[in-house]
């Protein structure tokens, strides 16, 4: 109930701040971009359109998660709007969870709309969609749950700009975690090697959520894999959220 009240408000704030205009940019970029790419590679149009739609969903979703997420708690602390909220008979973690789920609801709406727009666009171009496209869209969304949880954690700890830079780096490296293991052989057995190995296992591997090329080429993906990826994302998000709640609990406001 209290979590819902906070979440509803967070959602409403983002909507009234016109965050959903992002959808307009999404539509423009997808249409223009896929046209431009389509001209370059003749005969592969639909493949490219699907890939491009999913990639754009990932990027625009991540933009919302990073920019709204990293200021989520910080803004409340900075503007002191949470004085009257934390002094209500509620737990601080309820506030953190409410903020998180409010943003998640917004992302669900944004990604749902983007999926619908993409589907319509692909139908107009005469293509048809398989289950794997929607699996890819769902995992895109699930990836953003992790990104949002990290953003919320950082917004309890640091300023939005620094937070956004950190989350952005994690987003980029999370898609290429392999680099941490592929060090040149001269590093074998050194501290640096072990250090990067630790990082490899700490940073969530966001590529696990990436089914873009499978979707573009209509290669089926098992439901078992999808379920595993969902569980993976849920576990990471839960850990990050617990850390965010703990960081927020002892804070002097």
């Amino acid at each position, binding site marked *: 109930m*209290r979590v819902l*009240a906070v979440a509803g408000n967070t959602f409403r*704030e983002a909507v009234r701040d016109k965050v959903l205009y992002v959808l307009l940019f999404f539509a423009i970029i997808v249409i223009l971009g896929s046209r431009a790419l389509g001209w370059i590679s003749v005969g592969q149009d639909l493949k490219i359109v699907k890939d491009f739609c999913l990639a754009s969903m990932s990027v625009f979703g991540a933009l919302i998660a990073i920019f709204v997420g990293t200021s989520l708690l910080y803004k409340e602390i900075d503007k*002191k709007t949470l004085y*009257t909220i934390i*002094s209500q008979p509620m737990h601080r973690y309820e506030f953190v969870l409410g903020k998180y789920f409010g943003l998640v609801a917004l992302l669900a709406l944004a990604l749902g709309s983007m999926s619908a727009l993409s589907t319509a666009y692909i139908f107009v171009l005469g293509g048809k969609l398989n289950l794997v496209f929607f699996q890819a869209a769902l995992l895109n969304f699930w990836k953003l749950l992790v990104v949002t949880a990290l953003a919320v954690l950082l917004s309890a700890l640091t300023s939005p700009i620094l937070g956004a830079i950190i989350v952005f780096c994690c987003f980029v490296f999370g898609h290429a975690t392999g680099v941490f293991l592929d060090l040149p052989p001269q590093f074998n057995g050194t501290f640096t090697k072990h250090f990067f190995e630790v990082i490899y296992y700490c940073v969530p591997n966001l590529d696990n959520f990436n089914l873009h090329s499978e979707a573009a080429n209509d290669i089926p993906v098992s439901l078992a894999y999808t379920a595993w990826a969902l569980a993976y994302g849920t576990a990471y998000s839960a850990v990050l959220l617990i850390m965010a709640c703990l960081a927020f609990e002892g804070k002097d406001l």
Partner: protein
Amino acid sequence: MAAIVTRALSKTYKVIGKAAVRSLRGLDLEIAENEVFGFVGRNGAGKTTTIKLLCGLIHPSSGGASLFGEDIRLREARRLVGYMPEQPYFYEYLTPRETLTFYGRLRGLSAAQRQAQWDRVAGLLELEDIADRRIRGFSKGMRQRVGFAVALVGDPPLLILDEPMSGLDPIGRRMIREAILRLRDEGKTIFFSSHVLSDVEELCDRIGMLVEGRLVHHGRVDELPGRRMKEVEVSAEGLDGAAAATLVARSAGHRQIDQVHLFRVADLENANALAAEILAAGGRIRELQPVRESLDDFFARIQQKEAAK
């Protein structure tokens, strides 16, 4: 049961790389139910720090406090408090009606209870005409009213108000003053901080004064120990010029308005002597009024004494 009890409540702010600030040092205070308590002290004395501690926004460095017997660290204690911050900030994109609905939901009120709440509070603070405008465009006084309204949501028995009247015009202040008196008559306990000592004197049963985080004085306004009588003003008429001149020489100050002479002397002793001379010179006493040291002067004196320590 006491509404607020603090035991050696202390707060030290530690910021990395800076000297620790001891904002509150061992506050022992007990505030009875249905009391109006005024909390005064200079800028930076620790009033807001105390209030934030009581409302669970910051955690004590040592000591503790309870509200109606509930430890302030518990959620249950906050059910009993309505808090209005120094400068109330709300979501700018909401209207007052939406704001109160939001806080009602945080308090777990049903839709019907929230509506009843709105009717009560909006009437008390004249919110109806601004009910559906976004807070973004509000003046300070309107925000203050919304802040007070939010503190009243859920009808808590204790109100903790941080400078509820700062920055308001006379009408706005009177509205808040009347609201405080009305709530007191309804049986609420009210704890507020203020810089306007005349408001404190008018509203409060007791006051407490902080100097650099320490409580140096608390007690009933009219019984503050050491609050001196400053002088006595003797108003007389019917004196001729020569008699008046000798009396002026004997008094500490003198003014004349038309035929009325106002003499000021140090204490009642001197006032009686002066009165006798006035009567002997054929004059008539109109008024004999002790001028008590103002609360402002009293506090200035205490401040200087504490600073000298």
